[in-house]
């Protein structure tokens, strides 16, 4: 739950002229209290979304609504459609493993990811003004459901799908096979560099995330083996009896205690290191969606440009022949020109936004990863200290035993 600040020094925006002395505008959201609803196949998780704000269009100061995962997806899709050029915050994936879906861990990971999602939107200087956001945060459940069902089908395509189209379109092989001409592409070298960067970054991050996830598992496994080892040592201590047996028992007990520490650290590692890495991967994938949108906009602009040229030729032909079609043709031509301008404007907006977004994105990721690294290192140091303390406490006892054994 992060209070929104204007991260962007342009425009006064929502500062109400009526109350010059009022506090700066804020939009604070949190996603909490996951609850299992329904039964069997129909079962799903619902979340409480709490909004605290002084935005004029919002029902303030606080509003609570109940939302489910598909509502978040709807919001993401709306934003993706309406705010082309902006890197829409990523959503956690839909779970494919049935059993896992309702585990406490999964629910917590999802809740955290959804909370991040909404907060990032609320923090974004453009996205925070979205009508769809307001609907999401404020509307009652029926309105929400109506909105959701209206837009399903149209935005079912995930950014990943668009990416697939983008990729196919870039492939020379498919072009040859399908007999298509190579589609028009931007020839901006800086942009090429950015695209390459994004694609490679995803690969690197995915690998890091894979190992991070494995590391979580390893912590759990080590914890389990420490627990088993501790139990076994305790039994051995029972066989020995006397001071030596006691020492064994204590060793066993420490081992079991450390097992718990390890399980705890595994969880901490999962939530505070692995998940942020996964989130980073998702964010990069979302950017790929935006890249796709830019390509589409560029193509549209080019196509329209072509069409306009052709139309102009036609029009001139008609002008010469003074055909009755000329008026219609002129009309069409004007319309096309307007569309052309619109397409160009759209494309240029995307380019401008992307340039701003990439800076914002890099800053955000440095902060996010910096925090994740901090938590990772802190956790590991804490764990190591715990381990050292636990074992160290046994040394004086063992020393005493050594002295007495002779």
């Amino acid at each position, binding site marked *: 739950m992060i209070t929104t600040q204007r991260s962007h020094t342009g425009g006064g925006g929502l500062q109400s002229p009526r109350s010059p002395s009022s506090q700066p505008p804020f939009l604070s959201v949190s996603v909490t209290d996951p609850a299992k609803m329904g039964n069997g196949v129909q079962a799903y998780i619902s979340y409480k979304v709490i909004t605290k704000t002084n935005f004029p269009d919002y029902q303030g100061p606080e509003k609570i609504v109940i939302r489910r995962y598909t509502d978040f997806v709807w919001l993401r899709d709306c934003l993706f459609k309406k705010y082309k050029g902006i890197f829409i915050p990523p959503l956690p994936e839909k779970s494919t493993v049935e059993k896992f879906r309702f585990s406490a861990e999964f629910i917590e990971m999802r809740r955290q990811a959804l909370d991040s999602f909404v907060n990032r939107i609320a923090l974004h200087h453009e996205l925070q003004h979205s009508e769809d956001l307001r609907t999401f945060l404020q509307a009652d459940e029926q309105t929400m459901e109506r909105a959701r069902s209206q837009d399903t089908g149209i935005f079912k395509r995930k950014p990943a799908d668009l990416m697939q189209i983008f990729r196919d379109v870039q492939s020379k092989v498919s072009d040859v096979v399908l007999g298509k001409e190579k589609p028009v592409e931007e020839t901006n070298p800086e942009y090429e560099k950015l695209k390459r960067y994004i694609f490679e970054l995803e690969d690197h991050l995915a690998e890091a995330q894979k190992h991070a996830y494995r590391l979580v598992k390893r912590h759990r496994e080590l914890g389990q083996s420490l627990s088993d080892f501790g139990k076994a040592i305790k039994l051995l201590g029972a066989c020995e009896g006397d001071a030596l047996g006691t020492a064994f028992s204590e060793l066993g007990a420490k081992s079991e205690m450390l097992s718990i520490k390890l399980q705890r650290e595994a969880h901490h590692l999962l939530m505070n290191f692995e998940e942020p890495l996964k989130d980073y991967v998702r964010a990069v994938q979302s950017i790929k969606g935006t890249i796709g949108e830019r390509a589409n906009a560029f193509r549209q602009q080019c196509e329209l440009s072509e069409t306009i040229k052709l139309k102009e030729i036609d029009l001139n032909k008609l002008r010469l022949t003074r055909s009755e079609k000329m008026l219609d043709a002129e009309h069409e031509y004007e319309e096309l020109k307007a569309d052309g301008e619109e397409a160009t404007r759209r494309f240029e907006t995307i380019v401008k936004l992307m340039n701003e977004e990439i800076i914002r994105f890099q800053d955000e990721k440095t902060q996010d990863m*910096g925090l994740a*690294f901090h938590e990772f290192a802190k956790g590991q140091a804490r764990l190591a200290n715990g381990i*050292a303390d636990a074992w160290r406490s046994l040394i004086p006892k063992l020393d005493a035993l050594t002295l007495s054994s002779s």
Partner: protein
Amino acid sequence: MMAYENEGFEEAHPYASPHEDMESLVLHDDDTNNNLSKSNGGAHGRDDNQRHYPHNSFNSFLEPPSYAEAVFRSFDGDHTKQINSHGVVSTSMPSTNSDYLKISVTDPREEEDLVAGGNTYVTYLITTWTNLPEFNGTEFSLRRRFKDIVTLSDRLSESYRGFFIPMRPDKSVVGKQVTQKQEFVEQRRMALEKYLKKLAAHPVIRRSEELRVFLQVQGKLPLMKTTNMASRMVDGAVKLPKQLFGEPVESAKGGGDLLRIFKELRQSVTYGWGATKPPLVEEDKEFMEKKMKLQEFELALGNVSLQAESLVKAQQDIGETMGQLGLAFVKLTQFETNEAMFNSQKARARDMKNVSTSAVKASRLYRELNAQTIKHLDKLHDYLGVMLDVNNAYSDRSNALLTIQTLVSEVSALNSRIEKLEAVAFKVFGGDSSRIQKLEELKETMRVTNEAKNQAVREYEYIKENNKIELERLDKERREDFIGMMKGFVVNQVGYAEKMSSAWEIVANETSGYAERCR
């Protein structure tokens, strides 16, 4: 040959010197021969050695040595430690006062078997360094083959019944084929070395004539090879009581021997191999309790050994994954540095570099930790081996008891035959001369058998005494070894955890700014 002369003493003393001498042997023995095998004998000093070694992997971290580091450094490699009778740390090198017996097995060579013709066998160079008085010399070597080891082992088993004698390496045939021969020979060499070291570590056996002859007397091993069929069968199926087919300890007549052998065999079968359930119950309650406790101990030990293995594996796995994570971040660091278009990327690259450095360091630490852990917890495996030796010693005891019982029943059988014959022989006037002659023979046989029984009783008492002494020795050594093991394990863990903690604390501190920004 162990001093079991027919002195007719009712008490058997296992050694010429009293019990205390053995203890002093234990305490003063130098441990240069104790590199790997510290199972059931010899010196035990291995705790708290504050030696510092000039080249040590930890110097590369350029960190001041902590207490833990100094202490657990001593567990690196094969450095041996000492503990004096007060359990206080001492850093003494092998001094001229303490005695030592160091053996090495090297240089396996294939030689032609001139007797068998055409066959080859492998000999090993056995080198001994010692200052024990019974050896004439301080350094000598000779070549022995595996058969000689078998002979040595068999002879020791016969002479030192009741002792916890280390078991010799298996005779396994697998791997003798040419393709795996090199590996097999190397494994055998290591096993032989470990075995001889264990023998040298045993306070009684290291002084034995058998061992001395094996180590020192050149040429063909002059230890008489016994008709010890049991030895040949040992690695295969059942372990027969060695004594049954060996050199007769008693001086009974030939025919009677064979009969007795079969009687014992039958009884053995009835009561199970090496079982302790003869008609005469083992009267030593203390012994029975001790035996049961040892069985419990063996079970618990086996369990710990198993869990120790999985602990080691888990430590290994986490180290590996940490290393892979580190590498992934190294790549990311390079990538972000190369592609940096913004300062935020440079900052992130810096952070990633710190994380990757610590992760790689942690990975290395886990690997080292594990290597040490394996060494410490190896004690558990050693003692599992010792338990087998103990079981053998107990078998000696029960077999000796079986022998007594067999002889007792033989004596009573002979007695009843004599009585019957007496009744008949003197019914006839003047006596039945043939029957009287037979009577004389029987009486002679019974006298001899009775003698044998008495000797068997002495043998049994001798074994019992050995058992008792060995048990005490085992208890003491096990206690010391286990304390040492625990201490080593614990100190090791502390040391490495401390190092890991400081590596991560660096990163935590350098990234603390991000946490503050969040508030």
